[in-house]
């Protein structure tokens, strides 16, 4: 037993370098580690760009960086497979040495890139330290490997190798976030996965609530610019994630000159031709939408105020102000019921028209051909297709208040036309289960404002038409 399990003191003694060559190597490694650790303090990333040559070489970083990645991942593979084929294990040491050299090259180029382009920020700092620690891990692995092959320290080298791989994954992820922006990986991930990794890019400003800046300018900048000009990464010393930072500008000075869009660098850069090298958003990202550019121009023109609520000459009927459209909730596939549907159409004269060739978009019930004869009883006949009917055109039909009972079962309904019918609104409360309903047309009926009260609780119901009814609002527009 004693022979196989040496005392810890004995292990330590054997680990300490005994011959001068190994001691020299250890010393050199120590110096390299110290140098790597002190480098971030010597070469500071101050957010301003330096020298073209630095950028020229620096831009090879994304290319070269894949070399150590490949080599490092190869090492554990070689070690494991090497148990069967010793030749592979022999190669592992060489590959590990090569990986370290590649690490040093990648770190050097990384420094040149960051310093040359004047990038700074949280993500880049993390990436920098990740790269440093990774290089150190590789170096330590290299140093402890001989002891492992000799069978002296069976745990240290594998542990270090595992650390190396973890550091590699983490550092590579930070690098990826720098290139493609935060959330690139999770943007299209399935819902639960995305929520797990959710980290907002920037918070909507609360101080200037409802101002044009918060409602229109900030969201545009947040969606298009903040991934490079935000807290994680600060290209050109410019941050756009708050009003103060936006107005402070970057290393080239102010980017917005109130009242003068043509002299504001920010506006100039987003309106350049897309193939211009100064065009923003850079890196092949899509250009801002025409209306967004118009907003930014008008906002700068009219003083770039953080609190102004509206601007003259600018459409405020923007997406964010209009009621948010519900994503269409798919209905089940009715294809199998087609023969039944055809039969119903023939017997009732009303039609069930597909919204589109995609069955999950649902059916429209149209009664225009038989409107006068289409009453409560006929509607009840269609109840069995209710899950597939997303729109019911019952305008000018003979349906009455009695139909609200039937309609309460049509839970897929998005639009309901009851214009010119005899309904008076008694029983509108029964529509409450129609959670998808966004449109209700009661024009030309005898509904009163009192009867409409229950509709107020239906949150998605944005369009209620009451033209030519006792409940008609005084204004011309009767949309809610």
């Amino acid at each position, binding site marked *: 037993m004693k022979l196989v399990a040496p005392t810890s003191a004995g292990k330590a003694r054997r680990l300490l370098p005994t011959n001068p060559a190994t001691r020299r190597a250890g010393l050199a490694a120590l110096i390299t580690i110290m140098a790597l650790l002190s480098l971030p303090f010597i070469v500071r990333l101050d957010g301003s760009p330096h020298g073209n040559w630095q950028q020229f070489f620096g831009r090879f970083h994304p290319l070269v960086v894949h070399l150590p990645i490949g080599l490092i991942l190869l090492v554990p593979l070689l070690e494991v497979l090497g148990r069967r084929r010793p030749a592979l294990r022999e190669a592992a040491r060489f590959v590990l040495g090569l990986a370290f050299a590649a690490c040093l090259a990648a770190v050097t180029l990384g420094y040149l890139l960051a310093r040359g382009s004047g990038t700074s920020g949280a993500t880049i700092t993390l990436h920098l330290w990740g790269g440093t620690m990774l290089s150190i891990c590789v170096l330590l692995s290299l140093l402890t490997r001989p002891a492992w092959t000799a069978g002296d320290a069976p745990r240290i080298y594998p542990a270090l190798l595992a650390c190396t791989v973890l550091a590699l994954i983490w550092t590579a992820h930070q690098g990826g976030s720098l290139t493609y922006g935060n959330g690139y990986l999770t943007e299209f991930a399935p819902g639960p996965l995305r929520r797990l990794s959710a980290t907002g890019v920037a918070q909507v400003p609360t101080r200037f609530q409802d101002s044009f800046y918060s409602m229109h300018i900030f969201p545009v900048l947040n969606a298009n610019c903040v991934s490079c000009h935000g807290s994680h990464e600060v290209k050109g010393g410019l941050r756009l994630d708050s009003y103060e930072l936006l107005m402070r500008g970057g290393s080239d000075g102010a980017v917005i000159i109130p009242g003068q869009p043509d002299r504001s660098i920010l506006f100039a850069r987003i309106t350049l031709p897309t193939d211009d090298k100064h065009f923003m958003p850079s890196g092949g990202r899509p250009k801002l939408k*025409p209306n967004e550019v118009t907003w930014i121009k008008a906002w700068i023109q009219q003083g770039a105020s953080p609190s102004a609520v509206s601007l003259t000459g600018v459409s405020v009927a923007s997406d964010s102000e209009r009621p948010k459209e519900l994503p269409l909730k798919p209905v089940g596939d009715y294809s199998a019921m087609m023969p039944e549907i055809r039969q119903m159409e023939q017997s009732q004269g009303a039609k069930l028209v597909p*919204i*589109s060739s*995609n069955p999950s978009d649902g059916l429209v019930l*149209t009664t225009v051909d038989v409107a006068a004869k289409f009453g409560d009883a006929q509607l009840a006949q269609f109840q069995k297709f209710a899950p597939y009917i997303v729109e019911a055109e019952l305008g000018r039909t003979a349906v009455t208040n009695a139909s609200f009972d039937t309609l309460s079962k049509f839970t897929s309904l998005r639009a309901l036309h009851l*214009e010119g019918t005899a309904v008076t609104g008694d029983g509108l409360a029964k529509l409450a289960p129609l959670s998808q309903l966004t449109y209700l*047309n009661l024009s030309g009926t005898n509904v009163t404002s009192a009867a409409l009260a229950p509709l107020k609780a239906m949150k998605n119901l944005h369009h209620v038409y009451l033209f*030519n009814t006792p409940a008609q609002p005084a204004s011309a527009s009767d949309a809610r």
Partner: protein
Amino acid sequence: MKQHPNCTDCEQGPDVMNMPVPTELKREWAAIETRRQFLGRSGKVLGWAGLASLLGETAFIGDARGADAKGQPAKQARDGFASPHFAPKAKRAIYLFMSGGPPQIDLLDYKPNLAALYDKDIPASVRGAQQLTGMTSGQARFPIAPSHWAFKQYGNTGTWVSDLLPYTGKMVDDLTIIKSTNTDAINHEPAIMLMNTGNMNAGKPCLGSWLSFGLGSMNDNLPTFMVLQTKVNPKENNQPVSSRLWGSGYLPSQYAGVGLRSSGEPVLYLTDPNGVDREVRRKMLDAVEQINQQTLAELGDPETNARIAQYEMAYRMQMSVPELVDLSKEPQSTWDLYGEDAKEPGSFAYNCLLARRMAERGVRFTQIYKRGWDVHDNVTVTLPTLCAETDRACYALVTDLKRRGLLDDTLVIWAGEFGRTVYSQGGLTPQNYGRDHHPRCFTTWMTGGGARPGVTYGETDEYSYNVVKDPVPVRDFNATVLRCLGFDHNKFTYKFQGLEQKLTGPAPASVVEGLLA
């Protein structure tokens, strides 16, 4: 006479039905009887069986792609395209066609700086190498004619609108104004064909036919696609329009637009003559149908089907059209909105009112033609008349649709076939000027289902001559309209003459996202 099944030099042609071939092939053979008839008529000298196989199955008859891969064109033609590619924003459209080419500079394309350039020549660099029409190419000078009318800002959007269009001004916040529409044609005929059918040559189906083919009917008693012509004002310069603009081209003819006349009876011979009651009419139609069914069985020509369908439609229209054009039940609020003009059949306002009534009755596509916009001279006299005839009615239609809850799923389009020049055709005086055809830019608008409200899209240069930002060529315009109605213009095709024919033609077209809600 007993003949060899493979004999081609004989009266009846090969008897495929008795040949040992797969049933699939026999079915196809039955479907292509038209071809047999066609070649039979041309004297049977061509060795037609061989020719037919060389040309492929759809050599002589169209074929809707994707409807049925088993080669049953007659069935496809009858059933149409079935449904849109994706859930559309608009279920129907109303197209206000301003035939002749409205002058954008005097209406919606505001160019305040032109006033200072009155009677100066337009720089040659702006015109470039453009070939002008014969009407102005001989002019020694191209003097700039600023708009005679002042402009005002309207609505929350602050859109500049000419004093000629005070009603349009009231609805700018609902409109999607496109200042950068441009076309390839400089003369009426090719330009109006291009705008309507996507091709300068006659014979292609128009937008309305495509939509009627693709969307199908919602109302069996009215045509899916209706055309309303506005009564001609003889003081205006009226260019001819005719049924080629609402023809169905290679699509089966039941998808062609059905026109209502602007005066007299809306549809000729729609009322039964004296002594003929509805029952007699029904018997007559039944008899005619029997004969037509025989012809159909004999020839398999889809056009026979179209004819049967049209007779039936006409019979039903005998009931539905009188109801459609009976305005006696319209409330006073209608007349307050549209004005007294709307009571006169054939006026633009009357047609707009009919368009609203058709939208209510499930007509998918209504196109109203208003002629007279071809203002080569005398702009300051003619243009106010044209605007007075149309401005209020356009506003009334949009407002009426909106208050009745129809604008949510109705796309309204206002367009001509091209614009007009900034320089004066003929003499320029402080009181008057003329404007020639101008294809490089013109202003159009849309509103309603699918269009983004309160947007002015595209920009022209300071002379309203060239588009400087976001050009919208006709094919992109049409692709965008199709999108609003649920179609992908690249997939919405009909196989004819060996090509996947589509409204936007072979040149790549793209949907203009900036116009969409």
